[in-house]
């Protein structure tokens, strides 16, 4: 018997009046997956997470957790726990009591609560912080407390709502690694919401890209990055160049929009000609904006290569395999 998916959306929609926050969503999230819900703000990714947690009810459709219908279950009867974007630590409780909150509600004894909360805090490298108040902790530490508080209940699915959004860059990169390691060690399903495509690409096993309440594409980071199925995905994930169908038809004979990664464009040789409209030094590379007969293209020139001046006419080309034709998409 095939394992039931950890989370299964079946034709789920969530409407607020005329606003379709989530529209006709059918999606399986497998057990033990690190799954990212990626999209711009207002794309429905957070609503999707809240539907799993039970804070929202679907307008239509059903949600099942591990094969059991959970559509109407209140949040407190679901085997999932959430790490909130603003952490939502209880300000009146100490760190230890915060972590032990779920255990207290579940009726565990004081000694067991203390022991488990202590272990959970050790796991997130906050042993010895139990007596402090959340207000006395830094942003990164609060995030770890929120993580410990959710994990101490041993959920089958952990939901993370933009967990790294409030942290500075350095801390964010460190936490990305730690979250990934934690997920591998615990082996439970992590579903996390982010608008940061780099974060989604580097951490997840699979990504669902959202736009305007609909899933645009579901796939591995490599698939989403290399073979975007819609112009939106191509643009949102890695800011790819979207070539119009007419141009792709001329180049390949297939009439559908194409996606071309900026780093795949080579300047200096090739069939096409373009004028440089702008350039920006990024450190490891230089971004060059090009105008090829009215089509705007972006190229990344790695450090050490010659960078043309603004206004200069250049030739450009690419490995034909780098051009991905989005057959399923419309003009």
């Amino acid at each position, binding site marked *: 018997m095939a394992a039931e998916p950890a989370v299964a959306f079946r034709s789920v929609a969530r409407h607020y009046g005329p606003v379709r926050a989530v529209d006709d969503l059918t999606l399986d999230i497998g057990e033990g997956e690190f799954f990212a819900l990626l999209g711009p703000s207002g794309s429905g990714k957070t609503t999707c997470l809240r539907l799993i*947690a*039970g*804070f929202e009810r679907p307008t239509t459709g059903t949600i099942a957790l591990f094969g059991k219908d959970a559509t109407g279950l*209140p*949040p*407190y009867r679901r085997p*999932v*726990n*959430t790490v*909130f*974007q*603003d*952490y*939502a*630590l*209880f*300000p*009146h409780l100490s760190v230890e009591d915060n972590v032990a*909150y*779920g255990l*207290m*509600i*579940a009726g565990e004894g004081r000694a067991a609560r203390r022991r488990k909360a202590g272990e959970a805090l050790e796991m997130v490298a906050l042993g010895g912080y139990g007596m402090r*108040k*959340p*207000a006395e902790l830094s942003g990164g530490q*609060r995030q770890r407390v929120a993580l410990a*508080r*959710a994990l101490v*209940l041993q959920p089958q699915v952990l939901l993370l709502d933009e967990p790294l959004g*409030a942290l500075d860059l350095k801390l964010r990169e460190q936490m990305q690694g730690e979250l990934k390691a934690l997920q591998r060690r615990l082996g439970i399903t992590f579903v996390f919401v982010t608008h940061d495509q780099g974060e989604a690409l580097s951490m997840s096993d699979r990504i669902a890209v959202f736009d305007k309440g609909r899933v645009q594409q579901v796939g591995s980071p490599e698939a989403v990055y290399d073979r975007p199925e819609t112009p939106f995905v191509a643009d949102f994930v890695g800011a790819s160049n979207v070539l119009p169908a007419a141009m792709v038809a001329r180049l390949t004979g297939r009439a559908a929009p194409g996606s071309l990664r900026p780093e795949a464009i080579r300047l200096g040789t090739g069939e096409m000609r373009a004028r440089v409209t702008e350039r920006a030094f990024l450190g490891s590379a230089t971004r060059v904006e090009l105008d090829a007969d009215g089509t705007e293209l972006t190229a990344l020139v790695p450090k050490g290569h010659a960078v043309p001046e603004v206004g200069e006419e250049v030739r450009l080309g690419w490995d034909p395999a780098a051009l991905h034709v989005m057959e399923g998409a419309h003009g």
Partner: protein
Amino acid sequence: MRSEATLGLKIAAVAGLLFLHLPILLIFVYAFTTEDRSYQWPPPGLTLQWFGVTWNRPDVWEALGLSLRVAAVSTLIALVLGTLCAAAVARSRFFGREAVSLLVILPIALPGIITGISLRSAFSLADIPFSFWTIVLGHATFCIVVVYNNAVARFRRTSGSLIEASMDLGATYFQTFRHVILPNIATALLAGGMLAFALSFDEVIVTTFTAGQQQTLPIWMLEELVRPRQRPVTNVVAMVVVLVTFLPILGAYYLTRGTETVAGQGK
């Protein structure tokens, strides 16, 4: 930059404070005077006898008892209704939310005499005889405002995700209220309740219209001033009123001070 105040400003400030507080001290002084017909300055002599006289006056005890009971019951009603109303306004969106918010606050902005007259005519229209409960009803109208204002401010500062976090961790609605909401709004409720109690305890205008023949303490004092009989008794009672109303307000002030960290943490 701190600047030194001029001498004139200092004198004006001291004079202003004296003007505000000296009359209150005079009330205290007259509680000890030996002269009981008119307020003569300086007091011809000092005595403690009025405390004993006051203690033995049953009408004082009756008025004090009524005032305390009215204040307690009004505060209790205000705590329940004010908190519920604040929760609804701060936590959810519904049609007419702003209007409800305004209507709840209105009684305290409305002159007491309007509230009083309208309640009185409403009672007589509905043929409700004056009783303990008509006074309580009158007081509850403005007590609710105080509780509501305190509670709504605290609810707004309390992050909404706390409630979701609690339910996410397995707590039912009731458990969430008991373990998360109540501890976070407790000081605001205590402060609001104390203010409401103090307001109710020395209220005159609305009470005049809703009490009928009953005498709350402030009304008793008003009557007492008209009849010059054992005048210092009024002053003794006034001292008690000052203490009974001032202590809760002081408590409320200290309770709500420095509570920035109690609620709304997270961002």
